[in-house]
């Protein structure tokens, strides 16, 4: 993308004031997105993202600039303009770049650019049929197909010169069920760090049916009772609770500034004994995986919590300087338009020993949150709020009926202590995680877990 000579010149320009570290992130990305509503392809768009981000550190100060005018003169001008925000004079010696090839852990069999648009649309039609055909109450089906091939180059003043190609594919189905004047929606959106071979693993028809099942179940459900009671959170996308309520607090972005409830607590007990939690960006072909992070550090398995004890954080270079810790391969960004920071990759609670049946049987009265919607959290207070997309009432150890409209609210660190049962059925689900360095693909995950008490907000106020 850029010649080594130009890279060296830009890094020099970036260090022309008091900077002690400079980095270039160049990107050439090809995206495809196609939308189908009720079986009709409404629009399709392809695009090329193309630009360079330049980052400079001076101690723990950082400056970031980006442009998509990649002419040498402009890149050097941008580097100098960014450098001007830092005081001091240059102390840079000669720069030697060591080209470092990446071990590719995520084989891509079918590049999306080699697949005709018509073939992509066929897969969408199958998903549509799977959803539409599920039940007569399904009134709307929206199918979205996305693929992206991100080609990146990373170079820095420590001499690193590396690159990666990330290919991701996703199919997202939203089904709406109608009954009288009411509508309810269900969503399922599987994705992988894979090319079109993803559809060897994922049956689009089943994906559609899964979204439809949620919508149909919920349109026929009563409202959930509000109050504080035990909640059994199912596996796969149920891991969003850990992602939102705890994962963000384990990112160096919030730890370094002391705003996280987990700051300064390594070695302390932060969760009940049955909880072990991991972030692993190296799982082959997982949605949140990549060979290297967006600073060029190889991804790896990082144990965050082990048997309830806090073991580590997710750390990027800049916050690593603040915390005196090494980067963990978690520095990520949406694109060259964002400075990278510590983010989750594939984050999950490890499998335990109970079975789902045991957990339900041992719950006298509670909520079974089978599919979770998204959620949000205030990282300073740990307060979270997220929606239960598909919920059921548990009574006397049995699932008795579907309930809708429930939201779970509480504080992440309090919930961690209240997880009292963990099943053996670990699975991961896909999401897009939004934070200060943009929207990035991330897996959440867990086995089925039980939380002894959570505040459930529902439509039926008071009981």
């Amino acid at each position, binding site marked *: 993308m850029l010649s080594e000579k130009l890279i060296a010149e830009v890094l020099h320009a970036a260090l022309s004031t008091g900077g002690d570290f400079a980095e270039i992130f160049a990107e050439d990305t090809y995206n495809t997105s196609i939308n189908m509503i009720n079986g009709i392809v409404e629009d399709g768009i392809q695009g090329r993202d193309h630009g360079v981000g330049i980052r400079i550190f001076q101690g723990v100060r950082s*400056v970031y*600039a980006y442009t998509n005018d990649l002419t040498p003169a402009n890149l050097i001008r941008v580097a100098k303009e960014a450098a001007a925000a830092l005081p001091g004079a240059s102390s840079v010696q000669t720069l030697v770049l060591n080209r470092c090839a990446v071990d590719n852990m995520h084989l891509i069999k079918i590049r999306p650019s080699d697949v005709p648009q018509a073939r992509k649309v066929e897969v969408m039609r199958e998903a549509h049929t799977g959803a539409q055909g599920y039940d007569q109450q399904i009134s709307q089906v929206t199918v979205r197909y996305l693929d992206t091939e991100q080609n990146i180059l990373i170079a820095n003043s420590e001499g690193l010169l590396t690159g990666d190609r990330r290919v991701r594919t996703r199919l997202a189905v939203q089904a709406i069920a109608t009954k009288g004047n009411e509508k309810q929606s269900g969503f399922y959106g599987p994705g992988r760090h894979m090319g079109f071979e993803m559809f060897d693993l994922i049956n689009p028809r089943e994906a559609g049916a899964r979204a439809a099942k949620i919508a149909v179940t919920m349109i026929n459900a009563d409202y959930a009772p509000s109050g504080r009671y035990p909640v059994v959170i199912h596996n796969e996308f149920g891991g969003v609770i850990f992602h939102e309520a705890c994962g963000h607090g384990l990112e160096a972005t919030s730890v370094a500034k002391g705003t996280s409830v987990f700051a300064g607590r390594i070695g302390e007990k932060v969760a009940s004994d049955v909880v072990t939690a991991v972030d692993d960006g190296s799982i082959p072909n997982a949605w949140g995986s990549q060979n290297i992070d967006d600073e060029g550090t190889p991804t790896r398995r990082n144990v965050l919590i082990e048997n309830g004890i806090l073991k580590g954080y997710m750390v990027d270079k800049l916050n690593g300087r603040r915390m005196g810790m090494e980067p963990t391969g978690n520095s990520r960004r949406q694109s060259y338009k964002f400075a990278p920071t510590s983010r989750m990759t594939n984050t999950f609670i490890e499998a335990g020993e109970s079975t789902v049946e045991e957990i339900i049987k041992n719950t006298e009265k509670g909520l079974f949150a089978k599919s979770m919607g998204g959620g949000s959290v205030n990282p*300073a207070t740990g307060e979270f709020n997220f929606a239960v997309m598909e919920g059921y009432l548990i009574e006397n150890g049995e699932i008795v009926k579907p309930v809708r409209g429930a939201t779970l609210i509480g504080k992440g660190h309090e919930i961690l202590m209240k997880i009292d049962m963990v099943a053996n059925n670990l699975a991961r689900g896909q999401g897009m995680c939004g934070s200060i360095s943009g929207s990035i693909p991330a897996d959440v995950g867990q086995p089925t877990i039980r939380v002894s008490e959570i505040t459930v907000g529902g439509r039926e*106020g*008071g009981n």
Partner: protein
Amino acid sequence: MDIRKFKELVFAAGRSAGLEEMEIYAARTKELEVRVYKSEVDNYNLSDEGGVGLRARYAGKIGYAYTEALDDQSVEYLVNAVKANAQVIDSEDEIEFFAGSLSYPEVETYYPELDQVPAEEYINAALEFERTAQSADSRVDSVNWALTGYFSSDVFIANTEGLEQSFRQNLAYGFVSAVIRENGQVKTGSKSKSIYDWAQFDPAAMAREAVEEGLSLLNAETVPSGNYRIILRRDAARSILATFSGVFSAEAVQKGLSLLGDKLGTQIAAETVSLVDNPFVPHAGGSRPFDGEGVAVQKTDVIAKGQLNSFLHNLKTAKKQGVQSTGNASRPSFKSTVGIAPTNFYIEPGEDSYNALLTQLGDGLVIIDVQGLHSGANPVSGDFSLGAYGYRVENGKVVGAVDQITISGNFFTLLRDVEKVGSDLEFGLPGGAGNVGSPSLLIRGLSVAGRRGK
């Protein structure tokens, strides 16, 4: 490459590739954002970026493509990608390439003096955010956001039917948030504002307001579950309105995704509620002279005294319904397809101040912020169940803070349950759903989940 030259190359290449009609939508944006932490510039972001979107008709169908690189390779890429996409489109929607309105309004979107404010001023303002907030009270633990920024953008649209328009916009903004700690409690208070006249920007005042708000939330308690009379303060009301603003889009209506489909001309809200889309507000985030299809903008009374008068239209939905476009075609960026979005979208302010609303509330709750909008709100059914916090009010006086509650209800019911509309209209920072604003709203009743029993 210059955008006008790039346009000529694309149109020429498109014509020889058999594209029938073509339209270029280009945007170029310069931005600066400064974040201060512990008296240091923690983040300093500069950018200069843009790109071009092409939409074109091929064999009767519309394809889209975009590129951020304005080079010869991209000319070919755009034309090929548009063609490939057009070939898989089923939609029979009639898309019109608009030749242009007879005239375009003058809208104040650009303030030349703002371009002259040096980067240092942004740094100083962010430092002042932090300094003032940190020293405002001993219970301020840290200032987790002290941010200032600026953007200026140029939008250009041209097509093969003769349309060629452009406009320039600039705005600055500030955001400050303080973390308050006392006796193991942690609360945050924040304040944000968009600014066009730098001289009127008072970061110290904003910082003090943020701290005051954080302090006011200390010693919060939950409340017994039940039905409460509620004031949705302007910011909370605005968040809820923004979340559900999509139901007023004619596109949602025509696709059956809005429950308002058959409600035109009927009373859907309390008489106190008038909702407008107004692109002429000087220096507001959503102001503009033309929309994403080059149609001259207009002010639209969406709800007038409770009656649903109009949906928001672009050319496609207007043609389908047999009306004129309301100038709400949106292209959030050159990468996006044409959709519908509000410009400046707000509930018209009433006559009562926020304090007067408190008096009229008597006993109840004030909600100042809601959480979980992207998950706890169903934009189709209107149902919401949201984490919330604010204050408890007795006899028209705030008597304490409230947290760990959820408020639940339905947007369409809420519109009917508005008893009073305050005079304190305020806009948020402009976002994807347009620039949304609201005054505080006094609501007859909302279901609140807190603790059990009394």
